[in-house]
């Protein structure tokens, strides 16, 4: 089991490094090496670590462990073909974890990062709509049933493209340096991560790596279907590179605009699912 976790965290960090590299090359910069995020995680693991004097110490440390725990659980849910409703719940609960990171230190930068994390909750609703739309087709939310449905009827990417686009936008809203990355905006230093350093920051890197891997792997499983593991990794990389292009050419939106656009996307998706519900037998 542990080997899956280590692989997912390392591959996820490698994807995040690739993300930075692609953005840099599109913007005509050399950019960092692709393994930079892995080096970051290793570097932070051996740096001096303590807890700020103003922090709520137990929560400050505990929330890092909760973050690693929920994304580890999400990984095994996806690998075991369990209910995607649990994946949806974990994705939403990640907001509470970010909120916890931000508030627990007492820092105003962390606090406002946490506040922005809560107000960007609009980005979660398209994921819920995705879940609802898939249920209309399959009558089940078990990932194993969803892949079995696709084996007969073809990939969901072709059956219901707007649903795939909604989940693509959900992943985009979670990636750093994207149009919706308001929680880590530079005017907040590093947002909710500002006061977590040393081994705590290494823990956050592991969370980011696992989260990136799980979301992309879930996208492949839900919208492409059962493919060999190596093929899933290739497709995940292609999807990530496409997301990096979007991030490279799109400015970061203001918090208000970010929430407004995510709200509009949600409205469109709700209308689409309403249409599906109306026309489907």
């Amino acid at each position: 089991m542990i080997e899956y976790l280590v692989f997912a965290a390392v591959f996820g960090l490698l994807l995040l490094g690739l993300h930075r590299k692609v953005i840099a090359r599109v913007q005509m910069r050399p950019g960092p090496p692709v393994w930079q995020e892995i080096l970051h995680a290793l570097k932070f693991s051996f740096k001096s670590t303590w807890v700020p004097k103003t922090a709520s110490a137990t929560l400050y440390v505990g929330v890092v462990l909760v973050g690693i725990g929920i994304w580890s659980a999400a990984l095994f849910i996806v690998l075991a073909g369990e209910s995607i409703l649990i994946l949806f719940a974990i994705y939403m609960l990640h907001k509470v974890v970010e909120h916890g990171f931000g508030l627990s230190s007492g820092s105003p930068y962390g606090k406002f990062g946490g506040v922005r994390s809560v107000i960007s909750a609009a980005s979660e609703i398209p994921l819920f709509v995705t879940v609802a739309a898939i249920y209309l087709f399959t009558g089940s939310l078990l990932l194993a049933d969803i892949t079995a449905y696709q084996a007969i009827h073809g990939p969901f990417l072709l059956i219901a493209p707007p649903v795939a686009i909604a989940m693509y936008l959900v992943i985009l809203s979670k990636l750093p340096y994207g149009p919706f990355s308001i929680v880590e905006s530079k005017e907040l230093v590093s947002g909710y991560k500002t006061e977590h350093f040393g081994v705590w920051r290494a823990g956050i890197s592991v969370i980011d790596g696992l989260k990136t891997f799980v979301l992309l792997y879930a996208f492949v499983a839900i919208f492409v279907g059962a493919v060999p593991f190596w093929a899933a990794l290739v497709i995940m990389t292609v999807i990530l590179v496409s997301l990096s292009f979007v991030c490279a050419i799109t400015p970061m939106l203001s918090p208000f605009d970010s929430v407004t656009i995510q709200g509009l996307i949600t409205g469109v998706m709700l209308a689409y699912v309403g249409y599906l519900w109306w026309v489907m037998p």
Partner: protein
Amino acid sequence: MSEIGGSDLFVLEFGDILHYYTPYTTTLFVLALIFTGLAILSRPEGQVDIAFGGDAYYAKETAVSEMRFRRFMTIACGLATMGAMGSGDIFNFTLFASLVGITNVGIVAAVKSRHVLDAAYEYGIVAMVATLPLFGGAALILATTGTLSIPALAAGGFAVPPIGKALLALGVIGEGMAPFYAAKAEMFRAPGAPYVIMCSLSSLLIFLRVVEIAITI
């Protein structure tokens, strides 16, 4: 019964009322348990604020009496949330959801700040008004089907009115603080991260549970 949250792992029967735990509700229950534990063990942070007009900053301190009351409310909120996660009866679920609303108000109303109190007052009104659709939705489902047992409704044979489900979801959104106040500056003037986080967590968890109930029945 539709297994959208996975197969039942454990069923706890109280006569004709039961609590059931699927992988989905167990995940939510465990999260509520962990954050309740963190609230019990954590001391509040010293929230740092900048004094405008200079380079000075100060850290807010939380008085022991205030901390004790808010911690009590947080534990009560955690217990109510855990109850709502496993409930197999819509009436029990609505009771737990309204208890979450009451304790959320308590968590923030104990803060001695005019801005925070204003927000808590407004939230209290919303939570109170939200009990109407919450219990109204449950009443509508009971009047139409004759039962509020989730496994019985999920077994099929009942035409659960969509408006009943919609009212139930609306009531839960109103009881949970997060959609209305969690992002307001007034709320974040309140120090005490372990307690404020419980407001967000409980709101989110009861919302996630009502989604499962609405799809299941």
